[in-house]
């Protein structure tokens, strides 16, 4: 009896699986149709391009910068910062529609690990959330690897409070006192002064904190930019206090900050920029209070921001047309513009984009 029941169960499961498999099969066909159509389109473009352009390809290259659609194949390997990873992935996804035969693989073990691989010649591009250190550049030089550094986007974090908060400007010391590892249990803004750090004169009002959780890249960025140096000096681990309202959803964080006049919180600037009912605090990173807006972030004046880079291996670019096509695409408005803002980072100013493009063109 029991046996029979089990058999029925198994047959049921297998039948379900078969159905799902059949559904997949159907969908494969469905998917294949647009794909082949896409490829055919790409092929057509190449054909028409070839007939007219073969002669002036050389002349056009510098101006157009982009290879005709579907004309290159090969693979590109990228590793490095998990902060930059979403940009490189998004660029690869958009690029896939233009050059479907290029396979781009992106990994994000971290900036340091990325440079290790890059300077051993294992990867074509290294994503980085900071500039290369001289010690890392030395390894590259020892291994004869020349690279070009391209600034691609800005990672800015807005520090916020409720609209009724009298506080206008906070220093890094203030933020450390409010959310740093030693602030566990602090329930008032004025408690930040009790750590012996030079802080601003903060009012004795309730402190409700909302921010991203550990799984978030913004969480890591915030620690690395604001808290890490102070924590190192004080011999503390570079972490936040554990007792705050952490949420993965930026909308929920914003709602939390709105809910109290004396709240404190932070999210990526691109998201905060169009949030209402919150007050973006000015931040003093040592050079006076700077308000957070697209200009101050793009110019680097706003202290809770940092530039994001990609490093391209020159020799590999010379040998691999797929790599050149990918970086060309990265440098286009689809890359530095669309992809960057789609994944939630701040675009470079037009001047800075121009400088990056010039770096790439002049490699």
């Amino acid at each position, binding site marked *: 009896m029991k046996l029979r029941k089990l058999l029925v169960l198994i047959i049921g499961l297998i039948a379900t699986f078969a159905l799902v498999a059949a559904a997949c099969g159907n969908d494969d066909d469905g998917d294949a149709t647009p794909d082949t159509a896409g490829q055919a389109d790409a092929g057509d473009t190449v054909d028409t391009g070839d007939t007219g352009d073969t002669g002036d390809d050389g002349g056009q290259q510098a101006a157009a910068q982009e290879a005709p659609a579907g004309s290159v194949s090969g693979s590109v390997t990228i590793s490095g910062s998990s902060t930059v990873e979403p940009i490189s992935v998004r660029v690869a996804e958009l690029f896939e529609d233009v050059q479907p035969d290029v*396979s781009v693989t992106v990994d994000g073990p971290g900036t340091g690990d990325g440079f290790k691989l890059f300077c051993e010649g294992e990867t074509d591009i290294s994503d980085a959330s900071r500039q290369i250190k001289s010690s890392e550049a030395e390894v590259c030089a020892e291994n004869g690897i020349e690279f070009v550094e391209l600034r691609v986007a800005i990672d800015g974090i807005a520090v916020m409070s409720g609209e009724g908060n009298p506080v206008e400007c906070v220093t890094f010391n203030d933020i450390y006192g409010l959310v740093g590892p030693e602030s566990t249990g602090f329930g008032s803004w004025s408690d930040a002064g009790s750590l012996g750090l030079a802080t601003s004169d903060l009012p004795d009002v309730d402190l409700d904190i909302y921010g991203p959780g550990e799984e978030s890249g913004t969480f890591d960025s915030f620690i690395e930019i604001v808290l890490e140096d102070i924590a190192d000096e004080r011999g503390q681990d570079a972490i936040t206090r554990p007792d705050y309202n952490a949420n993965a959803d930026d909308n929920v964080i914003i709602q939390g900050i709105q809910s109290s006049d004396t709240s404190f919180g932070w999210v990526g600037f691109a998201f905060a920029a169009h949030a209402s009912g919150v007050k973006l605090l000015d931040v003093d990173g040592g050079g006076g209070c700077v308000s957070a807006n697209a200009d101050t972030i793009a110019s680097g004046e706003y202290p809770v921001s940092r530039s994001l880079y990609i490093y391209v291996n020159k020799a590999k670019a010379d040998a691999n047309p797929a790599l050149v096509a990918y970086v060309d695409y990265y440098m286009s408005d689809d890359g530095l513009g669309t992809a960057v803002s789609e994944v939630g980072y701040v675009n470079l100013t037009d001047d800075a984009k121009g400088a990056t493009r010039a770096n790439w063109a002049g490699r």
Partner: protein
Amino acid sequence: MAKARLIGDRTNKMMVQAMERRAADVRGRVFQITLLVTLLISLFILGVLIVDVVVDAWGVLTGRPSGFLTGTMRSLSGDPKLGVHQALVGTFWIAVFVAVFAFPIGIGAAIWLEEYALKNRFTRFIELNIRNLAGVPSIVYGLLGLFLFVKSLGGLTGGKSIASAGITLAILVLPIVIITAQEAIRAVPQGLKEGAYGVGATKWTMIRSQVLPYAAPGIFTGTLLSMSRGIGEAAPLLLVGAVSGRLGSNPGFFDFSAINAEAFMAMPVIIVEWVQNSGRDPGFAEAAAAAIVVLLVFVILMNAAAIFLRNHFEKKRG
């Protein structure tokens, strides 16, 4: 009359005693109820977990089930091409590697230990170590895989490939396979073996015709359960080099060139990746839940296969 009355009294007293003793067995009842409660707690937690995951995954699973199974890793959760195909292919091949490497070696080692090895201190030492290996944290096997299969034998395995990951996980489950197979072989009645010898069987014939068929159901259950454990491991795969952001290629299930290609993805890793992405893009939480359901179904199907095989062999044995 008096006699009858006496008997009646005695029976009465015995009845009362018996009833009193029953009533007095409070501890027994408490113990029984406690056991039931522990069972209910574990079932309840499991139920909550499954319901929670399925509820989270519902939108994806009902909205575009086939698109999700055939899609690839994407950077935005709203992308219609988002899916687990690459990870499913990776996990499928890892399961194949575990089956091909861990099962024959593990079962072979178990037969040797149970039937051929001398029962001396050296054998006991080996068995002790196998038991210890079964308790080693999986990340340690990841390190082994990184240095041995990715670095040293990179030419053979293709470096950070499905092959490296598969062999690493095969080694991870090997001690568990040996132990469960040993238990199954040990449970074969001595009389069966002696009977085989009695009709003139050699040791090899005895093992082949009596021990293995009798132990097969137990061996299958143990090995396939260990495989379920193996394919759920994320930590070793992260070390052996499952990519996190984007896998350029999307090989089919039977694309053999993908086995030693220098990049791969697997179900547990894609779940980790998407849970992390949910910080940036909350829609990924749903995708991660859906991926968990897909992995659960994969594991259930494998366990169903194990039950099927066990029943098949049990019938044979019957």
